[in-house]
Structures are given as structure tokens and as C-alpha cells.
């Protein structure tokens, strides 16, 4: 074959913009999730069940629940986010979608950010929506419930973002679920402390603006750093696949 006289194809100089590619990733994840609605309910059911365990296991007294309620809800939310993280990249890894994602010409960390955003909309946001109901069940007052919802609204994206690093690191490993919890729980501690601490201050009537701003700073920090770390971790995990 005489390859020499064949015309070379012109190389492409431009491609789909990062924003459009992020939208496509987000849209596909949403579509896949809604094809299997049962999976969407699982973290929510888990959330409700964990909260139910505390009155049963410790004490149904109003005074105890009022004091511990915010902490219980936060811990339950944290655990249910943790539970759902294993699926963040797992299915994509198994069917090869992740390889295609890594090979897309857009910066990988933006695509990972889009995936994490989809994960939050599907798990974190429903938890926040459900919180007022559970807050009433553990006898929190109206003001505390409001502040609790706010802290969860700021805090759950941080949980998803940090969790995405762990999910990417443990991709394709045996017993990835337990390992993921081991790696990630220590990193969740600051968010938990400030989440519950803010509600506690609110219950004492102290102003909470500063604490919420600090949680906002956590969110900004996680938004800027976590996608890079997860993208690097994804590349590593795929490299030996």
C-alpha cells in the first residue's frame, strides 16, 4: 500500500466547550439515575432509619432529642451520603464510560465536578428537603430547623466533593465500600463539627452568620481543590485497569 500519496486528514483544532461537555455529563447521569428510581430512594430511607434508631436506642425524651437532634440528623445525613458514594464512579468504571470520560478533550476536573454535582442533586439535596420533617420528629424548634437546613445545604456538597476523592481512590478495589469510609470519615469531621456547632449556637440564640460564612469557605475550598484530587485519583485508578 502506498501510504505516501494519501492525503492526511486535517486535524481538528476545536472541540466542544467545557461547559457544554459538563452539561452533557450531568444530563446523562440524571437520566441514568431516573431509569432506576429505587436507587434514588435508598439513601433517603437509610437517612430516616438511622434517625429513628436514636430515640429507640437512647431515649425518646423530648429534652434529650432536642439537644441531640441536630447532631443525629447530621450524622445520619453524613452516613447516607457515604453510603451512596460507592456508586459515584463504580458503574461508569464497570461499563467503560469512565475511560471515555477521561479521554474527552475537556479538562477532566470539570467533568468530575459535573458528575459530583449530579451526585449531590440526587442524594444531598433530597436529604435537605427531608430534614424539616425529621427535625419536627426530634422536637427541634423552628429556628433550629431552619439553621439546620441551611448548614446541610452548604455542608452536603462538601461531603459529596470530599467523598468523590475517596470514591476515585478506591475504584476497582475489593471491599471498596468499607475502605472508602475509612479514608473519608476523618476528612468529614470538620464539616460535621461546624454543621452541628452552628445549630447549637443558634439554639442558644447566638448569631450564626459567621459560622455559616466559615462553612461557605469550606465549600469554596472543597470546590476548588477536590475536583483536582479526584481527577488525579481517577487517572491513577484507571491506569492499572
Amino acid at each position, binding site marked *: *500500500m502506498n*501510504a*505516501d500519496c*494519501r*492525503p*492526511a*486528514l486535517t*486535524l*481538528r*483544532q*476545536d*472541540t*466542544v466547550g467545557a461547559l*457544554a*461537555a459538563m452539561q*452533557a*455529563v450531568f*444530563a*446523562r447521569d440524571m*437520566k*441514568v439515575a431516573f*431509569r*432506576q428510581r429505587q436507587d434514588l430512594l435508598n439513601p433517603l430511607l437509610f437517612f430516616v432509619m438511622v434517625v429513628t434508631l436514636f430515640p429507640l436506642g437512647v431515649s425518646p425524651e423530648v429534652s434529650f432529642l432536642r439537644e441531640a437532634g441536630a447532631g443525629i440528623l447530621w450524622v445520619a445525613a453524613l452516613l447516607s451520603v457515604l453510603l451512596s458514594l460507592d456508586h459515584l464512579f463504580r*458503574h461508569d468504571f*464497570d*461499563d*467503560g*464510560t469512565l*475511560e*471515555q*470520560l*477521561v*479521554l*474527552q*478533550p*475537556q479538562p477532566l476536573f470539570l*467533568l468530575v465536578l459535573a458528575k459530583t454535582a449530579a451526585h449531590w442533586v440526587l442524594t444531598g439535596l433530597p436529604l435537605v428537603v427531608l430534614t424539616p420533617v425529621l427535625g419536627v420528629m426530634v422536637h427541634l424548634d423552628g429556628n433550629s430547623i431552619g439553621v439546620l437546613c441551611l448548614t446541610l445545604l452548604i455542608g452536603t456538597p462538601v461531603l459529596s466533593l470530599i467523598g468523590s476523592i475517596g470514591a476515585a481512590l478506591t475504584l476497582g478495589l475489593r471491599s471498596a465500600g468499607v475502605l472508602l469510609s475509612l479514608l473519608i470519615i476523618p476528612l468529614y469531621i470538620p464539616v460535621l463539627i461546624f454543621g452541628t456547632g452552628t445549630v447549637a449556637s443558634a439554639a442558644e440564640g447566638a448569631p450564626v452568620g459567621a459560622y455559616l460564612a466559615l462553612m461557605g469557605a469550606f465549600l469554596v475550598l472543597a470546590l476548588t481543590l477536590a475536583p483536582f484530587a479526584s481527577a488525579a485519583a481517577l*487517572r491513577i485508578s*484507571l*491506569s*492499572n*485497569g
Partner: protein
Amino acid sequence: MSEPLLQAVDLQCERDERILFRDLSFSILPGTVTRVEGPNGSGKTTLLRMLAGLNDAWSGSLLWCGKPRSAQREEFLRNTLYLGHRPGIKPLLTPMENLRALTAGRRPLPEPVLREALDGTGLTWFQDVPCRNLSAGQQRRVALARLLIADEPLWLLDEVFTAIDSGGVSAIEDLLQQRAAEGGAVVVTTHHDLNLPGMQRIVLGGGAANEC
């Protein structure tokens, strides 16, 4: 002489304490089909993943259009299409949705074009069935539909013929040859006895490798 698209110089790859290949050099020219050959475990898939930029546990150098690839990763990714063992088909989505999602990040195409591509792979009547209800061969065809609309100059295809019936195989052989005639470059690994006129070979195995 047209410039090689991709050039490998002294590639060496080690896996689990074993040298898969060393001193492997070759160039992929536009308008050629290259077949990577070798027994099981000789590193065909690994080589292809290296070329695609997925695996980076190797040493040596890879040049894209004459310059180091690592310095122009985005240009490289824009112009390379990789289809792996697991081609990125979501079982819950229909062939149409899958194809749309896979092309959205590279070059979005209008619906009729995608429909035509699926027609071309014989999936006319399955466009709206979730892929998990399709057979292995049909799922493979969804992935191959990308080849009918892809404009990337370099294709890296891992085990393209897996689960494809004999009619499909010869059609794909024609497709690869036609692509080479247009000026595209194709690298394939396959156990199927592929023999196209003018095909280049990269033979792996036995710890050392040589190019024929």
C-alpha cells in the same frame, strides 16, 4: 512522505514485575491500518491503552505529530478515538441515548445523523430499547456505530470483532479499509484473523518485540 501521526520511541512497559515489551518503536502514518499481534498476556491491550493515554506506567517517548504528546494532551485527545473492551455503553440507556451521550463531549451531531449511524450497524429496530435487553453483539454494535460518524484521524480499537457475527466482521473490515483510504489511521488488536492488503503489524510477545 506524510508526517506520522503518532510515533513511539523505545517504549518499555512493566507489569507486575514482568517486562511486557521493551525497545518498541514504530510510527502510525495517516492512511494505514496497523494490527497489534501477540499471544494472550503479551500486552496488546496495555499497549493500546498506553497509546490512548489511559495507562501511564511506561517509559520511552510518544510523539504526536512530531512533538512530545505530554505537552499537547488536549490536541491529542481531540483527534483520537479509543474503543476499549468495555466501550462505555450504559445498560440503562437506549442505543440512541448512549450514542448521543458519547458524542456530546466530542462533536454533537443532529438526531437524524445518529439514527443513520445506528441504521448502518443494523440496529434500526432497537433504537429505543434499553441496551441491557440487547445481546452482547448488539451492544457492541452500538459502540461501533461511533465509527460511522467519527472524524478523529486516529482510531485505537481494542478487540473490535468480539461478539460480532461473520457478516458484521467483513463489513467492519471494509469500513477500516475505507477509513484508511480516506487518510485516517487505525490501530487494532484482534484475535480474529484480520488480513487487509497493506496492513502493518506490531508483534508483541516473548519479552521483546519487533516491528515487521
